[in-house]
């Protein structure tokens, strides 16, 4: 099978994640959508590795996973901190700078 199909799938998943980041307002769901986008990018990397016949794509995908894990850890800690002070996990409620 032509691995280009995986690239199409990756593009579609990335775009779905982007819609979620824009549309959803629960900060945790927004985070999940960001994870989806990162995963889609990883799929593209792994596909490129197979297309070009070297493992560098897989190594980059591995690094991306580590960075995504860091991002989740810090991001969720921030969400918990915001929730503690405001009792809400909605991204619309954290609007102190606009007032």
């Amino acid at each position, binding site marked *: *099978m032509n691995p280009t199909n995986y690239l199409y799938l990756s593009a579609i998943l990335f775009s779905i994640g982007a819609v979620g980041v824009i549309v959803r307002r629960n900060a945790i769901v927004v985070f999940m959508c960001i994870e*989806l986008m990162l995963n889609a990018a990883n799929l593209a990397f792994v596909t490129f590795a197979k297309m070009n016949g070297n493992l560098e794509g897989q190594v980059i995908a591995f690094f991306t996973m580590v960075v995504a894990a860091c991002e989740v850890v810090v991001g969720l800690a*921030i969400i918990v901190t915001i929730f503690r002070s405001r009792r809400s996990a909605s991204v619309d409620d954290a609007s102190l700078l606009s007032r």
Partner: protein
Amino acid sequence: MTGESALFWVLAPLSVAAAIAMLFMKKAVHSAILLAWVMITLAIFYIALEAPFLGIVQIVVYTGAVMMLFLFILMLVGVDSSDSLVEKIKGLRSVAIFTVLGFVAALTSLIARTDNGQAPVGLGEANGGGNVQGIAELIFGDYVWAFEVISALLITAALGAMVLGHSEKSGVAKSSQRARSIARFRGKSIATAAGLPGSGVYARNNAVDLPALLPDGKPSDLSIAEVLHRRGDVQETKSYALEGLPKIDEEGNK
């Protein structure tokens, strides 16, 4: 149709459907479950793409650790807090979907144009000495600096999470031993400072639900635990009084 394409055409629509459904779920927990499914399908795709190491890492790190963390935080901030799907900024949703559809069109046309129909090189040669060995050679060879920097990043992130998650203990200070001692020996509680009377111990009974008798023959409520009073589990002491004995009046005369 090869096995790989069959796998792709079964799993890819399922993962896209799950990803789309994720956007419409009102409760964040349902979104999390759907995302876990998408990640599992991606792990299967990795294995099909000759990346078994990444497939396993995907399952361990993403569906294992990251989704667990998500669910944990969901439980922490209230699993019932459902998101209202009403848009606050007018037209945001339609604009977002329109823009992203344009983005998809641009990406797919780009992929289609760069697809020259060439067969993929495949990882048969690169994976010759084993997939894990090949990746390890790259990570600890060409990419060793990136690896070190990323491990520093991971440690920093862990420290940052600890700093952000730390909260000063608020509210009333824990009472000291001195304060508790004063509360015990001053005021009304001096009467029971030496401890409450024990429950009744008799020749035929030795039970916590049997009140002790005071010198005047009355049962003592203090000798029974409060919870037994509330449950009504207190036994009558009088029924154990011996019958037929001559009464003794207050002066001790029979």
